[in-house]
């Protein structure tokens, strides 16, 4: 107790929302620092046999993990294991390890670690990101082999054994093979030193709905001195040895959240109707197959936005048509008869594969979404084919992202028609009436929504991008965060125009930006005529609770009043007042 460090706050990337307070469990991948032990000549042969047996064992385990991953719908993870099998089967590598054992008279685990480390280092040096990331796979496979060479002593390999009750897992990084060890019963949260929003740790924690902060620089340097940790999955903060006042305030937030969650779950079984009996759809935004469980758990009406980018970013190579089909089909099957809107890959020039990305001065105004995909016809085609092939249950719709003009809509539609023809010639079953929608997220699209509405089956308003493009303020840039205002009248007018255009053509319109989950915004959006909200799965009951206390006609008055205002501040104050009256200060109880 006496030489503990004081409160220390580290900053990382917020990867999964929520607050966790607890003791750290160090999930260490340290076994690669194997000490050198000599083996006498007469035992060399035995040592080699031991190594070969460990290879077989490892292979079996990888196959088992792959099977489990596929069963749970983790086609993404299953693919990673495929490449691990390729590594383990590499005959040249096997021979190298055997040679190392006999040449240097060493223990097989030392030989494996030495040889693999050499490869790892070589891959880390490669400039191309795809290839350099293979170093992680090598490390993962190497760790598994070594673990199987020392079956009695498995440091860190089985989380459930070492963890004391529920703890926060602290690690350098989370590898695919670790995934199977994680179980929500033991896990308060995850903090890692490396990784970003698309890392394995981030995907896993979102799917398990535990708070996570990743990419925390110099975590390992400080965390050993911590006996208590707080991770704030909203802001990306990690607090080591919190002082009493910090502890109390987080404890309170956490307590409120837990109560709320309990309450929410009870709420989620109730129908989502307003006081005047208007049925409202509350859909979910998801980005992996694993999250479909949360859609069901929170009793969401379906998926309003399936982001496909993470599938590509977290994958080892560009996903083939079949790989993608398996993923989309799994989501469709798991959620049937709920609807699933799949967004066409919306990658910017700053994202994804080195192969595809383009260097641009201003990527957010550059080659993004369809603009980029039209330049990669093969990728676009396999992507669309996979989505359409997965549509035979008739619960899938396609949404076109980042549309600025009608030409893009028509071009995409024509391509879809062509692909449908090809698929039917090839004998694939699919939904011939598959619905096609457009994301309204570029101001020009909102302005000509009446024209676009004639060409498509539905709209989804992406308020995050719409706001940043209307106000010319990057939402990730702290220096202009005061300009990025969700309640700016210009944003509200654009939403209004879009909803009106959709109503006139009698097509469906949803809203899938963060705004759909802001309590204050819900009465306004209802008043503007929105009947379909799409939010992070755990927010579904929160939205529902608010909706059940509102009357659409009253909200209509409110919306008209807001549309007349000249500033965000004026709108906010009207909304706060309304909210206070209708819902009370604490809407979430």
């Amino acid at each position, binding site marked *: 107790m006496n030489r503990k460090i004081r409160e220390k706050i580290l900053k990382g990337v917020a990867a999964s929302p929520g607050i966790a307070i607890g003791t750290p469990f160090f999930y260490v991948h340290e076994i690669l620092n194997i000490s050198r032990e000599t083996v006498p000549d007469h035992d060399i042969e035995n040592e080699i046999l031991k190594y070969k047996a460990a290879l077989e064992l490892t292979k079996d385990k990888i196959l088992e993990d792959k099977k489990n991953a596929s069963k749970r719908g983790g086609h993404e993870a299953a693919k990673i294991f495929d490449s691990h099998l390729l590594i383990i*089967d590499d005959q*040249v590598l096997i021979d190298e390890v055997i040679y190392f054992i006999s040449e240097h008279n060493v223990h097989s685990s030392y030989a494996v670690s030495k040889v693999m480390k050499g490869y790892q280092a070589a*891959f880390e040096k*490669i400039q191309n990101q*795809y*290839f350099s990331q293979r170093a992680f796979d090598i490390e993962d496979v190497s760790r598994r082999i070594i673990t199987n060479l020392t079956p009695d002593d498995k440091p860190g390999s089985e989380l459930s054994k070492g963890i004391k009750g529920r703890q926060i897992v602290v690690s350098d990084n989370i590898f695919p093979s670790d995934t199977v060890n994680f179980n929500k019963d033991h896990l308060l949260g995850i903090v890692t030193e490396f990784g970003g929003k698309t890392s394995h740790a981030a995907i896993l924690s979102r799917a398990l709905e535990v708070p996570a902060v990743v990419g925390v620089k110099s975590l390992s340097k400080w965390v050993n001195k911590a006996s208590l940790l707080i991770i704030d999955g909203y802001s990306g903060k990690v607090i080591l040895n919190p002082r009493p006042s910090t502890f109390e305030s987080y404890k309170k937030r956490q307590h409120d959240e837990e109560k709320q969650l309990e309450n929410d779950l009870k709420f989620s079984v109730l129908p989502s109707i307003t006081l005047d009996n208007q049925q409202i759809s509350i859909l979910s935004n998801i980005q992996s197959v694993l999250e479909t469980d949360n859609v069901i758990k929170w009793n969401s009406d379906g998926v309003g936005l399936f982001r496909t980018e993470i599938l590509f970013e977290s994958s*080892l190579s*560009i996903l083939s048509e079949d790989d993608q089909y398996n993923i989309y089909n799994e989501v469709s099957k798991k959620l049937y008869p709920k609807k699933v809107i799949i967004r066409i890959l919306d990658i910017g020039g700053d994202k994804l594969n080195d*192969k595809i990305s383009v260097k641009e001065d201003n990527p957010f105004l550059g080659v993004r979404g369809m603009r980029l995909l039209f330049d990669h016809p*093969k990728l676009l085609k396999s992507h669309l084919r996979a989505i359409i092939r997965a549509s035979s249950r008739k619960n899938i719709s396609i949404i076109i992202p980042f549309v600025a003009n009608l030409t893009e809509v028509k071009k995409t539609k024509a391509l879809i028609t062509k692909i449908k023809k090809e698929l039917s010639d090839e004998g694939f079953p699919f939904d011939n009436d598959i619905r096609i929608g457009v994301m309204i997220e570029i101001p020009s699209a909102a302005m000509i929504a009446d024209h676009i509405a004639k060409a498509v089956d539905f709209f989804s308003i992406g308020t995050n991008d719409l706001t940043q493009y209307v106000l010319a303020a990057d939402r990730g840039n702290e220096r202009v965060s005061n300009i990025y205002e969700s309640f700016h009248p210009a944003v509200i007018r654009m939403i209004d125009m879009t909803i009106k255009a959709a109503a006139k053509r009698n097509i469906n319109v949803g809203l899938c930006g963060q705004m759909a989950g802001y309590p204050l915004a819900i009465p306004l959006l209802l008043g503007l005529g929105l009947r379909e909200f799409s939010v992070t799965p755990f927010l579904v009951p929160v939205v529902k609770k608010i909706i059940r206390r509102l009357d659409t006609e009253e909200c209509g008055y409110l919306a008209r009043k807001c549309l007349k205002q000249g500033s965000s501040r004026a709108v906010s104050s009207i909304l706060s007042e309304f909210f206070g009256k209708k819902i009370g200060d604490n809407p979430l109880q």
Partner: protein
Amino acid sequence: MVEEQVKIINSLGLHARPAARLVKITSAYDCEVAIIKDDMEINAKSIMGVMMLAAEQDSFITIKCWGPDEENCMKDLKELINNKFYEE
């Protein structure tokens, strides 16, 4: 020994899957196979080696085969690469 320079034309380059296909061929032959790119030379029967070349689209690699069935092996490899690894 036969030696030839080949251009990688598939869009992914020697990613995991194409590399696996290449190794499947080289492993089926008795001859030795090496691939050289820039100043790196690797054993083409190792997928790790092949990936380590980080050969992207439009890059050139030099293939060397030596052994009893070197001619056929070279022929198969060229066919694979020129047919974009039968993936596109």
